[in-house]
């Protein structure tokens, strides 16, 4: 009886470890800037480099630069569309699109905003 349990336990552990590793690889859709430059539609995440954003209200194009979390990689983003309302407050920005000729052309922008739940007096 005993060896049977041990073998079963080992099999289970091996599968769990294998599962954990493969899950870890596929759990995040956000790729590094270097990876994004290789092409294909991907999602990248970073922080806005302040002062780099420019929005053309006529053509509805938004250009800005993202910096990755290690703080060395930078990526120029061009977004065709209306600027998201909470763009300035975003702590992190996700751009979904394709890298082409030196810029990342985003079809969609997602923004992460600081979410504090405080019952302070209502700012009117």
């Amino acid at each position: 009886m005993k060896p049977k349990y041990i073998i079963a336990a080992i099999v289970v552990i091996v599968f769990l470890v294998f599962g954990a590793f493969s899950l870890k690889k596929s759990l995040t859709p956000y790729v590094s800037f270097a990876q994004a430059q290789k092409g294909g539609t991907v999602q990248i995440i970073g922080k806005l480099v302040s002062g780099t954003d420019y929005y053309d209200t006529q053509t509805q194009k938004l250009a800005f630069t993202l910096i990755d979390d290690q703080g060395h990689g930078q990526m120029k983003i061009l977004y065709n569309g209306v600027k998201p309302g909470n763009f300035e407050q975003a702590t992190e920005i996700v751009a979904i699109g394709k890298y082409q000729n030196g810029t990342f052309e985003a079809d969609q922008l997602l923004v992460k905003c600081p979410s504090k739940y405080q019952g302070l007096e209502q700012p009117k």
Partner: protein
Amino acid sequence: MLWKILLFVVMTLIIIFANLWPPPQEKLGEVSRIFYFHVPVAWVSVVAFLVAMINSVQYLRTKNLQYDTNSAISSRIGLLFAFLATVTGSLFAKAAWGSYWNWDPRETSLFVLLLIYGAYLALRSAVPEESKKAALSAVYSILAFVTVPFLVFVVPRVFKSLHPTDSIVDKSMKIQMSGQVSSLFFPSLAAFTVLFFWMYHLEQKVEMKSKKEA
């Protein structure tokens, strides 16, 4: 009976108050009100999976089929609440980030959790023999619960995610909410937890009745 009426009153008040009482949160605005439902619902799914796991351990120790039934019931309710957390989360994500679903680590991890407990139900329906089914699903349920803390609590804190991780407690476990928000959030958490145990109890009664009739 009294506590059921009380729960009804409390739940009604929570729904009314959640929509009217706390000021709309900065940046998020009125959509932030889903917070009072999204978080408790996700919390209940964790509680339900924990109850399922405890019942599975009890089954393996005693071989009493009642524990197996309890474990199945709790997993079912847990799956329902995890699904509700996914739906409310998806709506919340659309409003807060700008996309219903973009495979953010938080979304993927919850999806994996749904698959894991969905597989539990599939496993149960695949084994006809009572005691074998009970033993297999008990072992599976315990293993499944091992993943819960990781998928629910660890993933969004380790991986870069759009999902906030410090809205309720920060890294040093200090509560980050204040004022009306916490005065409403904690009762909501408690009410949803009581609601779970009520559903759990009701399901037990239903199962018992259908077993008697069979």
